[in-house]
């Protein structure tokens, strides 16, 4: 299954050794998504219409956006299971501010980014300076952030949220020339992250840390600062995603917002070929993973199957995607087998 691009050594320019921009896992994912789209278009005439594709792209943006940050975190060998609670805290703070003082769209997005980045800073500082496994700390902060969010909520829901964030929603005002704005934001962020992770020394540091943290430190990388940065970026993107979640919802916000989101994000990232043990992963893969998950969700609903069945397929896709990656890893020459 390994693409020829993997076997051939990449052309060495200026001492830079990078794999081909689209690696094996991503080729497979593109093919799988293409096959799914063609099958769905053939099975239900409603699928290949604007009324179905645009909501699909809008619905995948929160997961994909947080997934970009999560990719960075997982590449360094960490994980952040608190993003669902981060989204909840950001969403309720933004919603309260919009209802209470009627702030505009830039202020709302800015507020979400600041709150999200602060929560990410808490995670990053505890993990980098407390030298504790990321999964344990973020399990703890998952509870702590949810507690903080519930304190802000006060009553069970926030009612009467104005349509300030409608430009990020599903409706007409959320599109330009038929393309949803939230999807455009996602593409811009993804392109920036892709270029940064792939083509700058700072971006490569994340991969070095995930490959071998001690070696990275000895090579002069500021490991702790990089790790903190990864969690801050994840929190910041979760803050932006919270704006999208509000925009896609109704005028009321329930306390259950964001619950369970962390698992969807991690699913998208690992389907995209990012190695959970660190050192390997790509933003493009995460986008494709999120697209695949959302395609399955939309497809199952449009085929008239019970919507809960989509999670079964998500589970199967995780196994297949990661299994294919394990197989390729075993065949890869010069790589230590991890089993």
């Amino acid at each position, binding site marked *: 299954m390994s693409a020829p691009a993997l076997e051939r050594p990449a052309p060495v320019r200026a001492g830079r050794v990078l794999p081909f921009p689209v690696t094996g896992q991503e080729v497979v994912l593109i093919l799988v998504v293409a096959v799914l789209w063609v099958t769905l278009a053939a099975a239900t005439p409603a699928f290949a219409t604007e009324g179905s594709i645009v909501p699909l792209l809008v619905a995948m943006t929160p997961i994909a956006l947080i997934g970009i940050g999560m990719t960075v975190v997982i590449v360094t060998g960490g994980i952040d299971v608190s993003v669902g609670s981060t989204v909840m805290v950001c969403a309720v703070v933004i919603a309260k501010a919009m209802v209470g003082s009627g702030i505009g769209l830039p202020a709302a997005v800015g507020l979400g980014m600041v709150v999200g980045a602060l929560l990410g800073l808490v995670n990053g500082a505890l993990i980098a300076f*407390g030298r504790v496994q990321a999964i344990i700390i973020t399990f703890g902060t998952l509870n702590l952030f949810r507690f903080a969010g519930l304190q802000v909520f006060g009553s069970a829901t926030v009612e009467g949220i104005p349509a300030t964030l409608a430009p990020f929603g599903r409706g007409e005002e959320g599109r330009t020339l038929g393309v949803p704005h939230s999807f455009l934001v996602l593409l811009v962020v993804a392109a920036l992250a892709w270029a940064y992770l792939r083509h700058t020394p700072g971006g490569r540091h994340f991969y070095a840390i995930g490959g071998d943290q001690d070696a990275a430190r000895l090579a002069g990388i500021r490991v702790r600062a990089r790790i903190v940065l990864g969690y801050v970026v994840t929190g910041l993107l979760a803050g932006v995603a919270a704006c999208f979640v509000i925009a896609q919802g109704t005028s009321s916000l329930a306390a259950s917002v964001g619950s369970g989101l962390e698992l969807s994000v991690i*699913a998208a990232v*690992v389907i995209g070929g990012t190695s*959970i043990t660190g050192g390997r992963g790509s933003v493009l893969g995460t986008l494709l993973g999120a697209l695949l998950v959302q395609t399955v969700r939309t497809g199952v609903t449009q085929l008239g199957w019970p919507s809960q069945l989509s999670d079964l397929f998500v589970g199967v896709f995780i196994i297949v995607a990661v299994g294919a990656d394990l197989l390729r890893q075993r065949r890869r020459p010069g790589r230590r087998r991890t089993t």
Partner: protein
Amino acid sequence: MTVTARALRLVLTQRTALLVVLLAVVLVTLTTLSQRNYLSAPYDASYLASTLINAVPLAMLALAELLVITSGRGGIDLSVGAVVSLTGMVFGFAYGQWGWPLAPAILLALVLGAACGALNGFLVAHLGFPALIATLATYYAFRSLALVVNHQKPINSAPVQELYSTATSVPVPLVGDALPEVPLGIVTFLVPTALVVWLVLARTTAGRRLYAIGTNDVAARWSGIDVRRTRWSAYVAAGAISGLVAVVTVAQFASARPDSGTSGNGMALPAITIAILGGVAITGGVGRVAGVVLATLLVVWLNAGILLAVPGNRGSQFQLFALGTVLVVAALLNALTQRRYGGSR
């Protein structure tokens, strides 16, 4: 070495010592508050005993996580809650609709849970999937099946509702009236499970093999241990325990609910939290039954006290705060102990 330094070292390196101290602090503080009438109801022995009903599923799943995490190589089981949901539904079908007697129905739950665990174990131990990913995938799959199998409707036919009578309190066997009555689930499910897990881990070669592969995969293989099979059986055991928890949960709710183990944050996260708090090292090879049981008691009795001190909805919110704080502090303490004393036991 002075006495204080020695005591500090004991509390920091022996997780059970730390938990006993914390448990004593919680109990003394809350009893004092109760005697000065700060709480909305008395925090006494019979209240503590009745809240143990919450400890049954929590402690059993934490024991399941103990087995899996101890097996090493990033071992973790995110799917336990989904296994509880799925097995609970099948148990509901067998006992509530197909008219099976109770014993075969419980056996079915046990076997089905073990089969779910066997799938996890096969993916992790034989195919080399990272445990986090394999159990995330099966979490999705099992949760989805549990919801679809009865079209999201619970099963609460007459036999299932009558199971609720088994969730009552009984006198402690052998001791009799000296202690307050405890929930029946403690006697029939939790204590036997804890005893079996303790016997296997501390008194059998299978237990020693599990610690060995958790500590060092390669060394264990070179000393002739079948690493894959040992790791696989840890996941099977975790699945079987989840199957038993499904029976307990169905009895407690008098209904087989399709989301019993997955609603809200689910059952897996609290179980993992308790295991970590009980001194199970996430890197594998370290963990004891006593620590997990003490950690469960600490969390359950702290939560029970919070409910009395902060009444209503805010009480359950403060429980989140307490759980998160306790976990973060325990993790930071673990790291500190690791650097200062070279690890805890």
